[in-house]
């Protein structure tokens, strides 16, 4: 093989550059944020559904609420346990989770999603 040294050196440099994001960010990753609950949320102990479900599926649930309320006009949601809740982000979710910055934003920032809820919907600090 001709120019073995040059080729191997070139390949090594190529793979080092390719792996740049991995070695550059090594050790810099921050741990997943802890959710901070308000006293009211702590007292309730359980959200409208199981905590695991809410953590994983709250966006799907909110989308369902959106369609049920805005399009079909059904404003009461019946949970798995048979409890009834008003399907409203501001009136129901934010009533307990009134700490938007510590509850919603922290996780959303961490996973780099920017839901556009707050373009239109209001949250407790904003209303006064």
């Amino acid at each position, binding site marked *: 093989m001709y120019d073995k040294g040059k080729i191997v050196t070139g390949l090594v440099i190529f793979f080092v550059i390719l792996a740049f994001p991995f070695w550059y960010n090594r050790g810099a990753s921050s741990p997943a944020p802890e959710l901070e609950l308000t006293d009211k949320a702590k007292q309730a102990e359980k959200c409208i559904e199981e905590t695991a479900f809410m953590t994983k599926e709250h966006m799907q649930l909110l989308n*369902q609420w*959106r*369609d*049920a309320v*805005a*399009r*079909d*006009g*059904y*404003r*009461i*949601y*019946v*949970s798995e346990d048979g409890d009834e809740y008003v*399907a409203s982000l*501001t*009136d129901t979710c934010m009533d307990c989770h009134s700490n938007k910055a510590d509850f919603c934003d922290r996780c959303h920032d961490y996973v780099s999603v920017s839901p*556009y809820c707050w*373009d*239109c*919907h*209001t949250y407790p600090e*904003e*209303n006064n």
Partner: protein
Amino acid sequence: MENSRRNFLKTAGYTVLGVGAGSVLIGMVPRLTDAAPVDAGPPRYKSRPEALAASRWGMVIDTRKINSRINRNIQQACHKVHNVPDFVGKLGAKNHEIKWIWPTKFKNAFLDQDHQFVSDHLKRTEIPVLCNHCNNPPCVRVCPTRATFKRERDGLVLMDYHRCIGCRFCMAGCPYGARSFNYRDPREALDEIQPNFTLRMKGVVEKCNFCAERLARGEAPACVEASNGALIFGDLEDPGSDIRKLLAEKYAITRKAELGTLPSVFYII
């Protein structure tokens, strides 16, 4: 291969028969969608027990009882509960006006009804106009995303702001000018935000929603409440309702009836 033509025709005949019979059989199988009752709502969702229901909401505006004070009160009541920004008053942005219900001159609301000797009251007093919640709404036909739609349950023409892309076809389609476009963020021109109603964002169209959120709580529309009896609302499909009795008794007109949009807002002159 003596029989080839005969065989070919036989096979072709069976095929035609089979396809024909098959499609008839498939047509006889009940479709899944047919089984669901029309107004059950999505599973696990329902209306509040106190919600007001109708087959087709409508409104009668008694222009004889309207005066400028009532006009002002109903506009203020409506715009307050729906967080309608006042771009004209707060920012002087005349071209960015947002309005859900507003007073206008009789000759402008009823181009085709105006004449030389129209009554003094109608010459002097403006009358309230709003979205007509048409039974045949042109805005719904032109909306490319179905952001605006007619809720078949109660006939209201509503907006789903989540879906609106701000193309403004609906504004071109509406013959009544009942729709406004948000050229700015509404927060720029709101003193206080009502927490139990949403805002809109820059780039969506908005309009009167017949207070769907208040009807769902069992309350009358805000304009009706503030109108001192000049605005009456009810179910147009129910012959026993107040609104139908009033319409049976008094002659009422609608705006631009010749267009065939079938407005649900009526005016007693």
